[in-house]
């Protein structure tokens, strides 16, 4: 007997033939990157889709352009671009470690590539590139609506304006910056660190703040849409910092207790302060992450049991959460209210 009952809360279930490492959702598409390098594109409404490219050496990240007409993938040995019109994929085997792809707008994408960040057009042609960093680039993020590029590597986050290789601002901190988070307001630059801390700069004057005391390295950081709340891993609890007013200096975060090991964080679109987190135990927790007082220890508003370690989470709409699991399943969970 083989009956697959789709629970009411599940919009669709799909799967890929690899261990997913990254998800990207834009408009009507879901992109899934597998650890061994294959990238799939699925229809957000049905989960139906196909493989669009193979990145030799594996993949680490995938990003759809805002208009969902192009896709960029990054991996240990290079990067690739895919065009929806015609379905053509261009693979660039640079031999350089590429851990991140981030679109400035529908026409330009920044790719971490070894010690450089490259700004490419949709065909993969280099438009410009900041000067090399001291070590392999770990993350890139756009500021000022795609006019300024922040590049994280060991020892510093450097910011570059278009076509200027030399940084317009350098935010130094001796540490291995693993992940960047910059709110839409551009007021803060935050990095998660190998030394188990979050380092924060106020972008206006470069004034610094370090949130230390995490038991583990901080490799996942995310601001909500309002730019007020920052969620981070680095502990079994998700910590949520309040960046309103003068910022989080001297404050305590809310602690969200559910997982042993956090593997994904995704803020629900909007300003309700709703967060989804995933764990290696296969649980997705949904949180009213900003409720209660600072220092509050929160329990999930709801949990979803996925049955395998969560690899990545992304919201397709305020009521649709896409989850990729380590066993290759990709599920669209319907989440109404909280």
């Amino acid at each position, binding site marked *: 007997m083989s009956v697959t009952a789709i629970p009411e809360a599940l919009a669709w279930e799909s799967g890929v033939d690899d*261990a997913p490492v990254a998800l990207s959702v834009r408009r009507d598409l879901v992109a899934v990157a597998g*650890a*061994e390098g294959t990238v799939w594109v699925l229809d957000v409404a049905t989960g139906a889709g196909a493989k669009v490219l193979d990145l030799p050496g594996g993949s680490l990240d995938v990003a759809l352009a805002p208009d969902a007409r192009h896709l960029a993938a990054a991996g240990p040995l290079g990067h690739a671009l895919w065009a929806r019109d015609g379905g053509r994929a261009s693979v660039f085997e640079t031999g350089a470690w590429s851990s991140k792809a981030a679109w400035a707008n529908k026409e330009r994408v920044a790719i971490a590539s070894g010690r450089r960040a490259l700004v490419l057009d949709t065909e993969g042609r280099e438009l410009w590139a900041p000067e090399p960093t001291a070590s392999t680039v770990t993350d890139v993020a756009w500021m000022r609506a795609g006019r300024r590029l922040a590049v994280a590597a*060991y020892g510093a986050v450097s910011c570059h304006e278009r076509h200027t290789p030399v940084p317009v601002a350098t935010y130094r901190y*001796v*540490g*291995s910056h693993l992940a960047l988070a910059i709110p839409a307001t551009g007021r803060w630059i935050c990095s998660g660190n190998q030394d*188990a801390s979050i380092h924060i700069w106020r972008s206006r004057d470069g004034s610094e703040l370090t949130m230390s005391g995490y038991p583990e*390295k901080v490799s996942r950081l995310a601001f909500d849409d309002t730019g007020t709340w920052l969620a981070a891993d680095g502990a079994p609890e998700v910590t949520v910092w309040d960046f309103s007013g003068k910022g989080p200096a001297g404050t305590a975060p809310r602690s969200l207790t559910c997982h042993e090991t956090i593997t994904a964080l995704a803020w629900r679109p909007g300003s309700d302060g709703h967060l989804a987190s995933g764990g290696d135990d296969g649980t997705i927790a949904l949180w009213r992450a900003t409720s209660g007082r600072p220092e509050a220890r929160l329990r999930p508003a709801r949990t979803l049991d996925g049955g395998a370690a969560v690899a990545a989470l992304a919201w397709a709409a305020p009521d649709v959460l896409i989850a990729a699991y380590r066993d290759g399943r990709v599920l669209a969970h319907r989440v109404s209210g909280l």
Partner: protein
Amino acid sequence: MTTSADGRVPVTVLTGFLGSGKTTLLNRILTEQHGLRIAVIENEFGEVGIDDALVLDAEEEIFEMNNGCICCTVRGDLIRILGALMRRRDKFDHILIETTGLADPAPVAQTFFMDDEIAAQLRLDAIVTLVDAAHVLRHLDEAKPEGVENEAVEQIAFADRVVLNKTDLAGQDTIDEVISRIRAINAPVEVIPARHAEVDLARIMDVGAFDLDRVLRDDPAFLTDTEHQHDATVTSVGIELPGELDEERLNRWLGELLRTKGADIFRSKGILAIADEPRRYVFQGVHMLLDGEFGRPWQEGEARRNRLVFIGRDLDRDALERAFAGCLVTAGAAV
């Protein structure tokens, strides 16, 4: 070969100078019919070409940790590569990391202590140093400018196993001299003579050199004669003392020692008898990082005794012996 009891994938660090036979040994490991799926991370690209094995290239990136520990550095490149490897669906039975002859082994080893994600899934099995019997003396004798490490000395000091390769190309006198020099630097290390990198893989892979349970099994070699009269700056100090230790005094001494001298102490190992504790305390460390736990109970009639060994630079044997003796319960108010 058996797989690790704790389920984590063992990682062997293979180090040695150019020409010592690392590539030959690597190829030997990869082609031997052991049925293991092996991933190789190499610093010198393109040397190994085996269809079956996954070979990844790494460029040494050393990162400081902001944890108040001055010698605490990790290898950012390894963290990245191992992290990506662990996210793959295909599982490996063993990982080999080949470092260049110029690489410092400490950040490599420390990576396995400092990164929780790695420590949860991988275990450092052993540091294996390849030595060219015919040419190593020249490297060991090479005078370095003040403050610069002699890498050959350092790699022997860090090793759990030394493969003394190319013994067919060196005379017996030279071989004897090399072994004696290796022992002067690293007394407890197991030296494996070899020709053409022909080594019984069971002696270098899955040996559990960092496994506290197995620190004990190396017992016979633990405190071999260290009374060589070389005026080397990197030496081993092994201490054996009967009796029981006062836990508080021991912690204070060891903590202070590693805090102040940790940069000069490359490796440390010990099996200790703590007062009022029925089990043996086993520890091992790399620089300032120490990993210890209570092991099996002392057996009935077994004499309580303490053995420890430090391998490092400018070690003051007398001072270490005195301070360690001061931790004995019977030393009482004398400290």
